[in-house]
C-alpha cells in the first residue's frame, strides 16, 4: 500500500477518481453508458471525445516543459492550422474530394509544424526566453489566422472532414483514437528511443548536458516543433468539431489548460523528469472538471471562479507539504482534521 501511495501517479489518479465520484454522487447517470446503433454514448464517452484537442496540446506541452520551457502559442497555432485547412477546403469548392481533404489536412499540420519550428528557432538558436518567444506567436498567430480567413469565420460543409471530431469507429469516437495514437506515438518516441532521457538531462542541467555531448539545441528545437505539430492537429480537430475556422475562439486559453494538465500530472515546471501518463491523467481531470461544471449547472459567468477554486483544491491535495500539514492537524484534532477538505468537495 505504501509503495502504491508513493507512486508519482497516485495523487493525480486519486484526484481524477474523486472528481468522477463527486459527479456520480450528484447525478448517477454520469457513469451510465448507453448503446445506440452500435455506438457508445454517455458523459464519460463525451469526456474521451472532447478531451482530444487538449490531449494533443498537453502532450506537446509536456515535452516543452521537460526542457525547462513553456509554449504559450498553442492556442494560436490551433487557430492557424484550422484556418489553413478550412480555407483550402472552402476555396477548392469541392469539400468532399478526398485529395482536397488530404491536402488541407497536410497543409494544416505543416502550418502547425512551421509555427513550432519558428518557436524553436527563437528559443534554441537565438536564445530568447521561452515565455517571451512563444508570446510572440500567441499574439501574432490569431492575426495570421484572420489574414488567412480574410477576416471572416470560414465555414465548410464536408462530411468526411466532420468525421475527424464527430465520427465513430467501432463504437467509440474517432477523436479518442486520435488521442490514443498520439499518446502511443509520443510515448514510443520518447521512451523507446533515448529522446526522453536526453530531454530530461537537458531540462535539468543544460550546460552539463552540452558538455556530455548531448545536442541540447536540437532537442529543445524538436520539443517545440512537436508541440507545434500536435497543436496543429488539435486545431484541425477543433475546426472539424464546429465545422468552422474561428480565429478568435479556436483554442482560446487552451495553453493554460495544457500547462495545468501537465502540472496536475506531476511534471515540474522547473523542467527535467516528466510523466506522459501523468499528463494523460491531468487532461482527463480537466475535461471531467469541465463536464462537472456543465453538469452542475454552474452559471457561465462564475465558471472561471469555480474552476479556479477546484484547481486550488486539487493542487493542495497533490502537495505533499499540505498533506503533511493536514496530517499534523489530524494528529492534534484527530476527528476534525479531514473534514474541511471533504466539506469543500461535497459543496462543489
Amino acid at each position, binding site marked *: 500500500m505504501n509503495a502504491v501511495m508513493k507512486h508519482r501517479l497516485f495523487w493525480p489518479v486519486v484526484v481524477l477518481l474523486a472528481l468522477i465520484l463527486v459527479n456520480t454522487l450528484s447525478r448517477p447517470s454520469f457513469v451510465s453508458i448507453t448503446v445506440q446503433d452500435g455506438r457508445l454514448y454517455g458523459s464519460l464517452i463525451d469526456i474521451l471525445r472532447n478531451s482530444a484537442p487538449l490531449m494533443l496540446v498537453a502532450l506537446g506541452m509536456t515535452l516543452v516543459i521537460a526542457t525547462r520551457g513553456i509554449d504559450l502559442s498553442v492556442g494560436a497555432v490551433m487557430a492557424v492550422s484550422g484556418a489553413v485547412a478550412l480555407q483550402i477546403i472552402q476555396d477548392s469548392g469541392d469539400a468532399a474530394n478526398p485529395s482536397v481533404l488530404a491536402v488541407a489536412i497536410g497543409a494544416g499540420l505543416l502550418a502547425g509544424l512551421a509555427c513550432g519550428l519558428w518557436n524553436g528557432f527563437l528559443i534554441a538558436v537565438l536564445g530568447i526566453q521561452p515565455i517571451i518567444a512563444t508570446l510572440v506567436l500567441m499574439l501574432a498567430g490569431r492575426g495570421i489566422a484572420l489574414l488567412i480567413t480574410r477576416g471572416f469565420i470560414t465555414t465548410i460543409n464536408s462530411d468526411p472532414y466532420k468525421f475527424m471530431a464527430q465520427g465513430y469507429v467501432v463504437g467509440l469516437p474517432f477523436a479518442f483514437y486520435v488521442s490514443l495514437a498520439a499518446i502511443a506515438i509520443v510515448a514510443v518516441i520518447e521512451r523507446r528511443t533515448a529522446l526522453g532521457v536526453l530531454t530530461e538531462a537537458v531540462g535539468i542541467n543544460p550546460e552539463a548536458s552540452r*558538455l556530455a555531448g548531448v545536442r541540447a539545441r536540437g532537442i529543445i528545437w524538436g520539443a517545440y516543433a512537436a508541440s507545434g505539430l500536435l497543436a496543429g492537429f488539435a486545431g484541425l480537430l477543433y475546426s472539424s468539431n464546429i465545422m468552422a475556422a474561428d480565429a478568435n475562439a479556436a483554442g482560446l486559453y487552451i495553453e493554460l489548460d495544457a500547462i495545468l494538465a501537465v502540472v496536475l500530472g506531476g511534471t515540474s515546471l522547473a523542467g527535467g523528469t516528466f510523466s506522459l501518463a501523468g499528463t494523460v491523467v491531468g487532461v482527463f481531470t480537466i475535461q471531467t472538471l469541465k463536464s462537472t461544471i456543465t453538469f452542475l449547472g454552474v452559471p457561465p459567468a462564475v465558471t472561471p471562479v469555480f474552476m479556479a477554486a477546484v484547481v486550488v483544491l486539487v493542487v493542495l491535495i497533490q502537495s505533499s507539504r499540505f498533506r503533511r500539514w493536514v496530517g499534523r492537524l489530524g494528529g492534534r484534532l484527530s476527528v476534525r482534521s479531514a473534514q474541511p477538505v471533504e466539506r469543500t468537495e461535497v459543496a462543489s
Partner: protein
Amino acid sequence: MMSTMEDAQPLVQVTGATVRFRSDTALDGVDFRMFAGEVHSLMGENGAGKSTLIKALTGALALDAGEVRLGGEVVRFATPHDAHLAGISTVYQEIDLLPNLTVAENIALGREPRNRVGAIDWAATRRLAHDALAALGLEIDPASVLGTHPLAVQQLVAIARAISTDVKVLVLDEPTSSLDFDEVAELFRVIRELKARGVAILFVSHFLDQVYEICDRITVLRNGRLVGEYLTTELLRIDLVQKMLGRSAAALAERQTFDAPDDDSSVTLSARGVTVLPGIADADVDLVEGEVLGVAGLLGSGRTKLARALTGVDRLEAGIIRIDGQERRLSSPRRALSLGVVYSSENRRTEGLIGELSVLENITLALQAQRGVLRRIRSARQRELAASWVEALDIRPPDLDRPVASLSGGNQQKVLLARLLALSPRVIVLDEPTRGIDVGAKVEIQNLVGELADNGLSVVFISAELEEVLRVGTRVAILQDGRVVDVVPSEGLTTDSLLAMVARSEGDEA
C-alpha cells in the same frame, strides 16, 4: 570572554546524534562538542557523516535521536535560518550564493536592513556589506555582481556573509578548496581573529596541513560513528589518517609508481598557440600517449580555461589542435567527445552531473548522446554497463537507481569519470578531480588516473594542490598568465621547488 574559566562548559554539545535515511544510518549516536574560542576540525572520509552532523547542527536536517545544546540549552532548529538566528552560521562547500545579485545583496540576503516604510535600505545594505568585507580585509566592490568574480572571491564573500551577523559558531565546510596560498593565509588570519573574539569555529577540510596549522582539536568520524576527540598537538598525522580510514596507513603510504611513457610514444594531442581571451594566450601543449601531464599554476593562471579550450568547450580564437597528427577543429564538446577528447569540469554539480537523474542515467548519458537519439542503448545493456563501472570504480552505494545528487562528492566524481571513460577516450582532461574529496577517495582517484595512463590514455591533470600534481603527473606544465611557460619532468621535483617555479613566473611578469 569566559572561554578560559568555562572550559568545563562547552558552547555546543551534541549527544547521541542519530540520523537515518530510509534504511541507511548516516549518523549513529555521535557525541560532539565545541568550546567558545576554539577551532575544531571534523575529520572523516566521505560518507563518514561529517556533512550529516553539520546539517544536524545547522538545522538543515532533523535528528532522529539525540539532542543539540547551545550554551547549555537544548535547541531544535527547524531551518538553517533558525540556526543562523541563534548564532550558528555555515559556509557550505559548494557556494550557495546567487551569482546574478550584487556582492552587497548576497551578503545581506534574507536580513536586509529595512527603512521606516519597510523597504530595503540600500545605503545600509551597502554599509553592512562593506563592513563585513572590511572585517575580512577584502577589497571587493559591494555593488559589483557576484558572478563576475572568480570562485575564490565568491567563497570569501560567502564567508563574509556568514560572519556579518552575531556569530557564535561558524561552520566552514571545505572553505579552502578553491583558495590559493595567499587567500588561505588571509582566511586563517580572519579565523584567528574570530577565535580571539570567542567564536567557536568548525573547520572541515581535507587538507591535513591546514587542519594542523589552524585547529586546536579534532573530532574523527567513521561510518557515521564517533571514533574520538583529540587535541591536535597530541595526534600524529599518521594516526589521524589511520583513525579516519580504519585501516593501516601503510597501505596509503605505499606510493604507486606510474610508468613514464616510452620516448618513442606518439603524440596524441598537440596544441599550438591556443588562445581564448581572456584567460589563455598562445599556449602550447603536447600530450604523449600514456602520460599524465600535470598542470600547475596559481589561481587565475588559466588552468580551467586551458582545459576548456583543449576539449572544445570554449571556441579557440586562435591556435590549432592536432589529434594524432591531424588538424582538428573542436567546435563543440560533442565534436571533441567524438574524437576521444573528454573533459571533467571542476564544477561537478553545475557542469558535470545531472543531479536528479540516476547513477545509471548519468553514467550512460555521454555514450547515449554519442550514439544519437535513435540508437537507444537497450535497458539491460545500460544496466550491465553502469554496473560494471560502478564496480570498477567502487562507486558507493552501489545503487544504480539512486539520484546522483545524493552521493558523496568522491562518488559523484567517480560517476562523472565513469561517464567519460565509457566513451573509451584517447585524451581525458581532469580539472580539479579531487576537489572536496576525502583522503581515501582522493588516493583512489589518483591511482585510477595512473592506471588509465598505463593503459595508453593521455591524461591532463589539473589541480591546485601541487603535491598531487607531482604525485600523479609524469610531467608538469607550468602555467602562468594563460601561457605554458615550462614543461618539466616531475621526477626530482619537490612541492617547494615546483611552487618556486609557479610563483617565480608570476614575479617575472609583474
